[in-house]
């Protein structure tokens, strides 16, 4: 009773204190998030609505509000949509291959079939320590017809030619990220209490059966997470193709959406580049939300 009587007074005093504490905790992040996430996005959107007007061909250029002028150009830009199509094709093939391999390796690491787990875990994860640019430079050498350790192969198969270069880049991305995705799935597997499949084991279920019927459904959220990050990464592909431009002319300056943005900004046509950025960002968001909703629905049903 007496406690109840003094509680409101104390609580209101504490709430005021907490307001300062909350401001100290959240403030710095909020300011930077605003300045370097929200404002740039808003500013890019604003710039994408501008256009340049000239009096005659060589007249003085002035910035004017152009409404959706840049977006009409975006939608009429063939190479840009080709680049979107190219990364989508890339993603449809590369993401399932990479995640399938990551899942298989995680399940094998988690099964009693394999010895030397610590070594394999580190060996598979090691490529993640190699930045995309460096990995692309390295594989560029490995693909080269003359310098590769596998010249018997690279002299006969043109990995850097127009037909294969997209898949050669897919291999670089897969090489870097399988181990990382494997570890995320593996950590989720380790968090499953072993009692859950103890019963199945006693009933004589094989490791493959346990993996398929028990483990994979339980780590589905982790797989979703890796899938979303992989899709985002695919649409943002830049470093690897940018490096490959030095090795082969098959990689054009509009090979991926981000390369298109970079090339357009370098022209410089920053209003169009800003419109490209907005479209790519919206595309990425839509796609990752769709994957999220789709997997949530199939998990619920």
């Amino acid at each position, binding site marked *: 009773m007496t406690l109840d009587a003094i509680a409101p007074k104390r609580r209101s005093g504490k709430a005021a204190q907490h*307001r300062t*504490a*909350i401001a*100290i*905790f*959240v403030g*710095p*992040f909020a300011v*930077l998030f605003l300045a*370097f*996430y929200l404002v*740039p*996005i808003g500013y*890019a959107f604003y710039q994408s609505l501008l256009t340049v007007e000239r009096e005659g061909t060589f007249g003085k250029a002035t910035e004017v509000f152009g409404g959706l002028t840049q977006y009409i150009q975006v939608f009429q830009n063939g190479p840009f949509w080709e680049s979107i199509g190219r990364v989508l094709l890339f993603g449809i093939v590369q993401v399932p291959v990479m995640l399938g391999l990551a899942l*298989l390796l995680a399940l094998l690491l988690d099964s*009693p*079939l394999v010895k*030397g787990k610590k070594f394999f875990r*580190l*060996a598979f*994860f090691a*490529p*993640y*320590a*190699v*930045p995309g*640019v*460096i990995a692309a430079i390295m594989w*560029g*050498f490995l693909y080269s017809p003359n310098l590769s*350790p596998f010249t018997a192969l690279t002299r006969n198969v043109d990995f850097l030619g127009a037909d294969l270069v997209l898949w050669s880049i897919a291999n670089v991305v897969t090489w870097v990220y399988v181990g990382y995705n494997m*570890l*995320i799935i593996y*950590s*989720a597997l380790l*968090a499953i209490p072993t009692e859950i499949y103890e019963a199945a*084991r006693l009933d004589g279920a*094989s490791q*493959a*059966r346990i993996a398929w019927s028990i483990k994979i459904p339980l*780590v589905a*959220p*982790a797989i979703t*997470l*890796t899938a*979303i990050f992989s899709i*985002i990464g695919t649409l*943002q592909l830049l*470093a690897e193709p940018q*490096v490959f*431009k*030095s090795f082969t002319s098959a990689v054009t300056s509009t090979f991926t959406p*981000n390369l298109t*943005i*970079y090339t357009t*900004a370098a022209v410089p046509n920053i209003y169009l*580049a*800003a419109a490209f*950025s907005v479209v790519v960002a919206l595309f*990425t968001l839509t796609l990752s939300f769709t994957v999220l909703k789709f997997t949530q629905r199939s998990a619920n049903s």
Partner: protein
Amino acid sequence: MTNSTLARRAAPSRESLLSRSAAMLIMLICTFYFLVPIWWLFVAATKDRSQFTSTSPLWFGDFNLFANIGNLAAYRDGVFFRWMLNSVIYAGAGAAIATILAAMAGYAIAKYAFRGRELAFNVILGGVLVPATALALPLFLLFSQVGATNTFWSVFLPSLVSPFGVYLARIYASSSVPDEIIEAARIDGAGEVRTFFTVATRLMAPALVTIFLFQFVSIWNNFFLPLIMLRDEGLFPVTLGLYVWNTQVSQIPEIRAFVIIGALLSIIPLIIAFLGLQRFWRNGLGSGGLK
């Protein structure tokens, strides 16, 4: 597929020799796939120019690694090591500050009720889905508006924001910092901020190491932002520097050796960081993946 049919046909209670061998075979093939390129890089970095093309690419010639590093250090006043230093500052200092900021914000969202909390968290979560490369051009436009492109800050400041870090910190703080401990600290008269830095950070340590590592890697690997922001070679991170050298190989052939040795040296800090901190990030990763 073959693996599962093999396993199913096998004796029920113990794994057959066949499925164990198949599993080990897959592991060994993958080990080759993942390690041979790194091995090749290491071997190539130990060779001088003539042996690079004349000896077997996967085995050593004369061991010239240290001579090569010496040449690299001498080339253009050791600009390569300047780039390494830049990367260490961008990634090390950037990730450290980003971790503290993300931890404070995530902790506050987990432990205090305030107006707009869920909205703020959802906006931040949306930020997780906006990748760093998508922001490169918008950031460039913004920095050029204030005339701050081609500066240290134009690459450093944006890397201090880690929405994924806030997400991870919130989840971890809710599950591993009990309210009773915060309450006890309050009764002892510790301020909220002091409680966070002395008590909560200790309990959140595995998550903090994970956030730090992920942010470190993403800054170290970040390529688009420096590519688009920086003109001055002295400000380059190592990835951008090696990229520029690689584009010059056809004009300046001797630079190829520097690209290779530089590539090897540039991955060593990350390998050391991962090996040294592995028991932390292994635990932290799971908390992000499951929830």
